[in-house]
């Protein structure tokens, strides 16, 4: 149940995700993605993941930490999300359960309400944050973090991780 402060955990795995990575080296596969999907996620990997002490490698094939996909998935509840398919390897136990072989999806069916470079980077920052175990943050949290999602991605939001996000990752890897 909920604790007092913070209102809920902002790091750690649950059954439906997020999951942690198995180590600090992210192997990233792009599966038939648009150029803008590559650009926005590589921006986050190049500019934000080093703050976690993570490295990343571009891979092609079925051996990956994260496979990135995009599509027009219609009116679903999210602009982007991650899952851990049956083909992935799981280890550890909650709240430190990790998934090697996560799939990250970007939903362009709803991109009419977000599609600037800034907004894309914010979304990429957010979804990739889930792949290392970061969870959505409270709307009331005063820190500036891409893990806060109480509005449509927009230019006023952070497209970076907060110091708290970074500390959480360092504390758990």
């Amino acid at each position, binding site marked *: 149940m909920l604790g007092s402060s913070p209102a809920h955990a902002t790091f750690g795995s649950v*059954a439906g995700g997020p999951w942690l990575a198995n180590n*600090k080296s992210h192997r990233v596969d792009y599966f038939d993605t648009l150029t803008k999907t590559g650009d926005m996620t590589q921006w986050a990997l190049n500019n934000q993941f080093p703050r976690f002490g993570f490295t990343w490698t571009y891979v092609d094939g*079925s051996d990956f930490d994260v496979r990135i996909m995009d599509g*027009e998935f219609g009116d679903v509840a999210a602009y*982007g999300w991650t899952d851990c398919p049956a083909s992935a390897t799981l280890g550890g136990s909650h709240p430190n359960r990790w998934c090697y072989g996560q799939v990250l999806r970007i939903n362009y069916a709803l991109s009419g309400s977000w599609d600037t470079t800034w907004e894309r980077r914010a979304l990429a920052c*957010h979804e990739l944050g889930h792949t290392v175990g970061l969870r959505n943050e409270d709307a009331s949290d005063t820190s500036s973090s891409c893990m806060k*999602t109480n509005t449509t991605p927009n230019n006023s939001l952070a497209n970076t991780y907060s110091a708290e996000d970074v500390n959480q990752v360092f504390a758990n*890897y």
Partner: protein
Amino acid sequence: MLTPIRLATATVMLMLLTACGNVAGETSPSAGPSAPSSVATDRLARDTGADVGTEKESSPWAVHYINGWEVESYGSLASLVRSADLVALGTVVAVKPGPTWVESEGDETMTSEITAYTVELTDVLSGKPVGSTPGRITLEFGPNSPDAVEGRTAVVGESSLFILRRKGAPIPSIGRLEPMKQDFAREVYRVVNSMGVIADVDGAAALPLGDPDQAWAEELERGSFAEALEHVRAAVVS
């Protein structure tokens, strides 16, 4: 990237992509797999243990925890409920795969699949249910990788309070003033957001689809399911 309307061409696309690799304008994969650039701290030994453990697993709905950036967020229960197209109590009576998206790269195919539940409504608090069977609606989650959502069948039998959006419906609060016609015509529902299923876990209210990121949701989850229901009823008539 495939759209539903392009699914009919999936087979042709598969053949084309197999022959030609990526289409123009899309990213090109690297030449082949490579070893990780470094393995800084392989701190967790791999295993195949079961998913057990956190507070969210107290409800079978936790398999649909929304692990992403949500479309809709509301600052109060009243604003969430008033925005919904349907607020109802109901019981899940069946689950089946919904629409799929098939995408190919080289000789590999990836499928994204909707999970579709049939919910028998027992008490409609607001809204007029749509669908082919009176008293029943289709509630969809995903799409996800097939079999990514382990434990879907465990959701069958769950009686919960649902705060739902008809797929494709206009959502003035986010600036969508016209329906998304293709989704709207299907007459199915999604949750408004991760606060859209209030589960009854041994009499306690639970929000198993997400982390309550608003004070009202945290408060709701501290009370009983009966209290949550009364709060929602009050919000409907407010």
